[in-house]
């Protein structure tokens, strides 16, 4: 019933431990790679902070940086554990830590996957941020004398030159804003006054673009002013002219740039996730095979390793019940009228065979009336008593009668359950030892 059981000889166990040690060190390197990828993305976003409006785009690189650092730590510890696993005595040091370590690593790989998926999901946030940021940058293009905005002109110009783009969506965005500062406009000239009066807000709008929109590949010297006026230039038709200015919008250009970065980062993180998952699987096999080896006693024999002792459904149900019962530790068992000693078999002498009664006489009535949950709860004290599997099996016929659900639960104690069962056993030694045959 175990999931993916594999037999391990001594040599294959040792080899597995050594290989895992190397793989864990490679994982430390991949953790460093993750960290540097997050740092790179953060730097790239910060480089253009002037063009991005306030949006929460920093959570993706921050997550990658955090995950990278945690990966380094976890895999360093894993490497140490695997190095010690070759030697049986050293393994005992780590025995209790290994299962929590595996569970932590499992959740950690899950967060690596989340980090990879977030890379792909960041696009819409980025688009919104860029739209608003570029719009504001273009609006403040002319404010080279306002402190705090005096470098926006240079930033936008260099952006348009480097990314070969013009405006937010296209070059027409420049027609809707005043990008020539008023201190360079001759307010006494008739032409300027006419233009200022021609629109509601008194802005000097013109069908011209800054020089940074000019396309280098144009065969013709750049036409920046009176773009929509065909008669202003010889041999010019602005509807068919494509090479004069950059046609792409800067929002799309920047988005493409960042999307390509994030897609490659996302791909690398996915590959790292698969690698981490495989290392985790190896460590799990190593842990189960070593624990089984300890149980068998002979350090040189074969042992079995598995991913889960029982099937997924049973393990899930068992863990779910543990989580449920964690919350119920302090609850009073109302079925027994609050008396926890109700079902505890006494140490009294029952006669020549010393066979305790199989059923408390009035317990059967209770079993019919009470709910399955409380009968299950009421059986907990009896379940706690036996530790070896054989005595548990001998009690199966006794316990099957009251509730039909209990047998599957009883059949399925995993090797991890003995600690759970052992604890109450330690607390109630004198009473519970009697029924052991």
């Amino acid at each position, binding site marked *: 019933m175990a999931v993916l059981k594999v037999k391990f000889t001594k040599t294959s166990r040792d080899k597995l431990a050594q290989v895992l040690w190397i793989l864990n060190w490679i994982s430390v390197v991949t953790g460093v790679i993750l960290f540097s990828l997050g740092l790179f993305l953060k730097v790239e976003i910060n480089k253009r902070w002037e063009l991005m409006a306030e949006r929460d785009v920093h959570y993706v690189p921050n997550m990658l940086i955090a995950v990278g650092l945690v990966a380094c730590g976890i895999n360093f510890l894993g490497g140490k554990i695997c190095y010690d696993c070759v030697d049986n005595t050293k393994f005992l040091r780590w025995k209790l830590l290994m299962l929590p370590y595996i569970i932590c690593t499992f959740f950690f790989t899950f967060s690596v996957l989340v980090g990879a998926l977030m890379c792909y999901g960041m696009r819409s946030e980025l688009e919104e941020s860029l739209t608003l940021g570029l719009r504001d940058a273009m609006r403040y293009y002319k404010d080279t004398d306002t402190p705090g905005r005096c470098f926006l002109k*240079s930033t936008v110009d260099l952006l348009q030159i480097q990314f070969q783009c013009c405006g937010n969506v296209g070059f027409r965005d420049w027609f809707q804003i005043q990008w020539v500062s008023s201190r*360079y406009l001759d307010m006494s*000239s008739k032409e300027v006054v006419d233009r200022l009066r021609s629109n509601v807000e008194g802005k000097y709008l013109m069908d011209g673009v800054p020089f940074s929109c000019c396309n*280098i*590949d144009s*065969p013709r010297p750049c036409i*920046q002013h009176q773009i929509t006026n065909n008669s202003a*230039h*010889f041999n010019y038709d602005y509807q068919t002219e494509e090479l004069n200015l950059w046609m792409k919008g800067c929002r799309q250009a920047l988005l493409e740039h960042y999307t390509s970065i994030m897609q490659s980062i996302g791909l690398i993180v996915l590959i790292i996730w698969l690698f981490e998952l495989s290392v985790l699987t190896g460590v799990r096999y190593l842990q189960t095979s070593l624990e089984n080896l300890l149980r068998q006693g002979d350090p040189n024999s074969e042992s079995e390793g598995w991913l889960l002792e029982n099937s997924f459904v049973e393990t899930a149900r068992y863990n779910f019940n543990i989580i449920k019962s964690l919350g119920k530790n302090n609850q009073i068992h109302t079925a027994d009228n609050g008396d926890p000693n109700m079902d505890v078999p006494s140490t009294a002498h029952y006669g020549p065979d010393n066979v305790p009664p199989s059923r408390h006489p009035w317990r059967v009535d209770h079993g019919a009336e009470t709910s399955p949950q409380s009968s299950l709860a009421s059986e907990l004290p009896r379940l706690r008593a036996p530790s070896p599997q054989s005595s548990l099996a001998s009690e199966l016929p006794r316990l099957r009668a009251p509730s039909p659900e209990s047998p599957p639960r009883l059949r399925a104690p995993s090797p991890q359950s003995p600690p759970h069962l052992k604890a109450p056993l330690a607390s109630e030694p004198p009473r519970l030892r009697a029924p052991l045959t």
Partner: protein
Amino acid sequence: MALLKMQFPLHRRVRLAQGLWLISWMTVLAGAFTFSLGVYLKTELLRRAEVMDNTEIHVVPNILMLVGLASIGNYMFAGRICQDSLDPSRFPRWKPFLLPWFGLSMLLCAHLISAVVLSYALQGSLEESLKVGLRNGIRFYRDTDVPGRCFQKETIDRLQMDLRCCGNTNYRDWFEVQWISSRYLDFTSKEVKDRVRSNVDGRYLMDGVPFSCCNPSSPRPCLQEHLTDNSAHFNYEHQSEELNLYNRGCRQALVDYYMGLMNTIGPGILSVISVQITVMVSLRYLQTAMEGAAELENPEDESVGYILEKGVKETVTNFKGAFLNLLQPGSVEVAPEAAEVENVDKATSPPASS
């Protein structure tokens, strides 16, 4: 009489051989480094090859590449010699190769030194080449429809934007050239006709520059046309305006760029030269010490190492004599015999006189 004699006990010989082996492998890496520097310099020169008239300056990266490759092989050979030097049975077979090896190493060092010297000496030639190349580039800026010249416009525009420069010496070079192609000029318009007639060659000259001369750091939107006409623009004075266009000429910008590159490469090459000289000197000491040890009765005794067996002058005369012998094998050797006769005379005369 030996030059720079040193004593070499056994442990020092061993230490010298081991250290020299390590340093020769470092020199192999230095040779690879030299080769990569040569490749980098060559690619940088080739990137702007369209604005250069001749390729004289390419001799510097070519030397670096050749010397780099040769020194990789040469010093791997030296490492092999060092490995065998401590074994007296294997060392003798390398003996005939040592003299040519020294000759080759000295040649490589000399070439490296010449490369460093040339990189400064050829600056004038580079400037001339750029002057002619840029002048042609600016002249053919408008010929985007002529095959072979159609990319000049793009080249010059990209150059001016990347290096933040304008024109050959400065932006006024654009005033002397017609940089707008005639197919975009309306020859029916009066203004165009006036301009074309106003100069001898019938060119459309204007006091304007292409957009690639514009400086993005200027607080004002770029002024490209009527640059010398103060009244054409509001609040504009062309003599005091510095931020509107790039002030530097492209020739100066390119020369500065390449000189900066060579100034960075220079110290690296000098350190490679010093490492190579160290290896040569050490190998000479090792060779002479090993040969001296082989001649002793007890090979593990102390031996003497030197750079030259006799003084510098004597070695030069011996070398000259040997060289002349090679050239004239059949002629009678008068000079050495005369010297012998003189010696014999000198030897016999004192006993005769005494």
